[in-house]
């Protein structure tokens, strides 16, 4: 009776509530503090390298002695959404610790700007770096921060400042004047290009370098370009289907590699800033040093060269023609599709239904996409690990070409138009004018739906130069496109008629 009365006393209840609230509050606060230390974050050992790279980064290792902690970037600044996000990210971490195979986590993919955007908070960057225009900021920095101020929903801090929290060897967001300069041990420098007198596959040698690459014959023929209306994942720009006749030509067995592209870069490259007016003495001016690291820290060598602009790829072909005395150029879109199909008519040059391979579609809710067959021919989103691959180990298409689909998308010489002319055509070269160029084949980032032989895409010049703060922006390197490269073709007969 007394107890009942006691508990009915409003003051007691209020007091109990207060005490309970305080316990929860201070306990919660304490718990929040404990689970927000760097040591706590690192205690799961899920990503030991993340701790190491953080300690090497400017957010840890700087002259001011300031340490930026895990939660400073990987949680929003203190305030209302803080706890919500903390719970959310905490649950996610617990889930992946318990359920996922740690060995299989693709850390390479987590180093991309897109992943960084998912795992950091813009508001947290700004909370510390509130002054975007400090004294001493370079002109390029001013340009970039002005653009950022006006386009905050379009571009994030980490798009440019990717490595500030986790150090990465060679990562740079600046004028990369040393790019491609690493001394290579010269074993044998070719003095003569390959001699080609008949229509037989050959190995080209770049004079003045140690670089060689294979060119394979593509027999002339007739094919139906575009995809049928019932092909899964078909897009309207893949039609109308029309008959195309193609003359014989040679095509690079592989996409142009860094070795090949760097031969061009070192033999022709300028040191200044490329402008349209710049003309080299011999008529071919080469790329100026890039902004940032075009190779993305993935390595160079036989990996496909990437991030060069369409104009740069064109310049490469002109240069290659000059040094080899042949006529190299980018393929037309028709040549590209003809070569990719290699005489086949299905969605791919190998067996299979895109519905089974794609991550999209209602079936994916029940069964995982089939990767066995497609994975032997194509480097795409499901097997690339988020980066380009070296070409070894992949099966060729019927013409002997490797990586036509996937790895990197490839420039064609045509302007893009969202529709083909319906008429039968002989060696068509695309519309007379346009604003963006065709790219084909999909890339290491693509879904299986987008590496079909008929799938089309095009350049996005403005978007791909967003984080290049130079004035004018580079005409040689895209700052924000890492999935496009190219492959050369060579006319037969090989010698230039002019």
């Amino acid at each position: 009776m007394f107890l009942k009365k006691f508990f009915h006393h409003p003051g007691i209840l209020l007091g109990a509530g207060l005490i309970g609230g305080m316990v929860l509050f201070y306990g919660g606060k304490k718990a929040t503090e404990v689970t927000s230390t760097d040591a706590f974050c690192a205690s799961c050992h899920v990503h030991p390298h993340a701790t190491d790279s953080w300690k090497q980064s400017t957010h840890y290792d700087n002259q001011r002695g300031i340490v930026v902690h895990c939660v400073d970037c990987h949680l929003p600044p203190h305030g209302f959404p803080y706890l919500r996000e903390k719970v959310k990210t905490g649950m996610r971490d617990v889930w992946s610790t318990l359920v996922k195979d740690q060995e299989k986590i693709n850390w390479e993919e987590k180093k991309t700007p897109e992943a960084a955007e998912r795992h950091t908070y813009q508001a947290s960057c700004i909370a510390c770096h509130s002054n975007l225009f400090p004294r001493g900021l370079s002109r390029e920095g001013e340009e970039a921060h002005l653009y950022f101020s006006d386009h905050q929903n379009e571009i994030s801090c980490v798009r440019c400042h990717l490595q500030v929290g986790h150090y990465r060897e060679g990562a740079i967001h600046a004028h990369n004047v040393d790019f491609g300069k690493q001394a290579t041990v010269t074993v044998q420098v070719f003095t003569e290009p390959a001699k080609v007198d008949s229509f037989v596959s050959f190995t080209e040698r770049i004079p003045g370098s140690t670089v060689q690459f294979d060119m394979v014959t593509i027999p002339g023929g007739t094919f139906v370009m575009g995809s049928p209306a019932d092909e899964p994942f078909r897009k309207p720009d893949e039609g109308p289907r029309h008959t195309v006749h193609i003359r014989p030509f040679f095509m690079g067995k592989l996409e142009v590699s860094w070795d090949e592209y760097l031969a061009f870069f070192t033999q022709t490259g300028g040191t200044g800033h490329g402008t349209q007016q710049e003309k080299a003495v011999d008529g071919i001016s080469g790329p100026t040093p890039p902004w940032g690291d075009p190779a993305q820290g993935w390595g160079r060598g036989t990996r496909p060269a990437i991030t060069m602009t369409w104009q740069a790829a064109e310049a490469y072909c002109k240069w290659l023609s000059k040094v080899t005395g042949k006529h190299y150029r980018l393929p037309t879109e028709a040549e590209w599709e003809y070569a990719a199909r290699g005489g086949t008519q299905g969605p791919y040059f190998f067996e299979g239904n895109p519905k089974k391979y794609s991550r999209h579609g209602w079936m994916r809710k029940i069964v995982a996409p089939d990767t066995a067959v497609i994975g032997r021919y194509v480097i795409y989103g499901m097997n690339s690990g988020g980066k380009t691959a070296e070409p070894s180990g992949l099966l060729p298409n019927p013409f002997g070409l490797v990586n036509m689909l996937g790895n990197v998308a490839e420039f064609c010489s045509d302007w893009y138009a969202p529709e083909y002319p319906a008429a039968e055509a002989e060696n068509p070269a695309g519309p007379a004018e346009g604003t963006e160029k065709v790219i084909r084949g999909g890339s290491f980032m693509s879904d299986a739906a987008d590496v079909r032989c008929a799938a089309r895409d095009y350049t996005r010049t403005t978007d791909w130069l967003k984080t290049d703060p130079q004035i004018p922006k580079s005409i040689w390197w895209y700052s924000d496109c890492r999935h496009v490269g190219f492959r050369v073709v060579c006319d037969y007969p090989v010698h230039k008629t002019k």
Partner: protein
Amino acid sequence: MKKEQHNPSRRHFLVNASLAGTAGIIGAAALLEGCSKKKKVEYPFPPLLDKAPDGKPLKAAVIGCGGRGTGAAINFLNAGNDLSIVACADMFQDRIDKFRAQLKEEKKVEIPDDKCFIGFDAYKKVLELDIDLVILATPPYFRAEHFRAAVEAKKHVFTEKPVAVDPVGARAFLAAAKKAETLGLTVVTGTQRRHQRNYIETFRKVAEGTIGDLVGGNCYWNQSKLWHVNPKKEWSEMECMLRDWVNWCWLSGDHIVEQHIHNIDVINWFLGKYPVSAVAFGSRQRRVTGDQYDNFSVDFVYEGNIHIHSMCRQINDCTNNVSEYLRGTEGYTNCEDTIWKPDGTVLWQFEYPKNEKGEVVRELKVNPYDQEHIDLVTAIRTNKPFNEAENTVKSNIAAIMGRMSAYTGKEVTWDEVMQSELKIGPAEMVLGKVNYPVVIPVPGSAPEV
């Protein structure tokens, strides 16, 4: 209200539409909630004293010693006590000599020989001196570079308008304006209408909603031909251009930027926003030297589909007019001193002070050019930074947008200008041959014959 305007500590002034100037800030905030038609305008008014307060002696240097540089130096010296000009920079000795002579004669100020610098990089030498502020009055082409250097050197700035001649320069200026803001520097920019009591009182009335919502307007700078300097044999090509700068687009930005910016700025100020696009035309009819047009006509479009017609001309014996006009849903104004009802009857008029004879003349007690420097010195001495650089460069960008549209015949948007790589002027700055093509733009294409 009046008191507030005179009190430099209360520069941020809130206007409530329903109050029409009857209450202070606290009252305004309290009433905001109960009022459905509310309008809040925050605008940093300059302190507007008749003379700058005494305080720390301030040393200034002048970069660009032509007519306006000399004028600005004298305006600065007029602003208060303990103000001095201690150094100067220009491209030409005769300009420096004239400048020093005039300062000596009018203000008894002498600048020693070793504090006078000549050349394209003279501004760097000036900025290394122990000075508090710089007056930037060179041809506008150089302004962004000079302003950026002045801010990096942590100097307060008086800069003449315009502040840039192309999008690249304008963005450099804008970034430096933001740096100046975070450094707490005071920057006054030579758009003196924003320092005129008549304009400010009219703005206040309009911001309070006296003529309702603004729906459209016009602005004009139509005047006779401006000056030109014929080339001389003993001058290099560069020297000819620099001395004739007001006729060369790369140096002045063309007259829509160089002169008409004043009126465009008033419109932007009153509307509280900047145009999103422009379609313009213009031509060169009677100009003697240089490569500029002598007339422009621009349709500026603002958010809310507000159209402003801007026109400017520098041709003799035409109808002249330098003014602004804004129409609201409940009346109209000349922005300068009068507000009319829709039927044309005067609703409000600014009260000008009386002169010694007791007559009302349409003149302010302090001339606006001195007023700018009084405001500059007051802001520095009271440690209440006043920075109008961003406002001015944005109006400057609007003017460049109009010019770009007239030159190309194409619509130009604000975003296009903000991302444009257009940078005009020769690549190399030397007093000699100018390696820069003289091309007078012709918009569109000729019909095939």
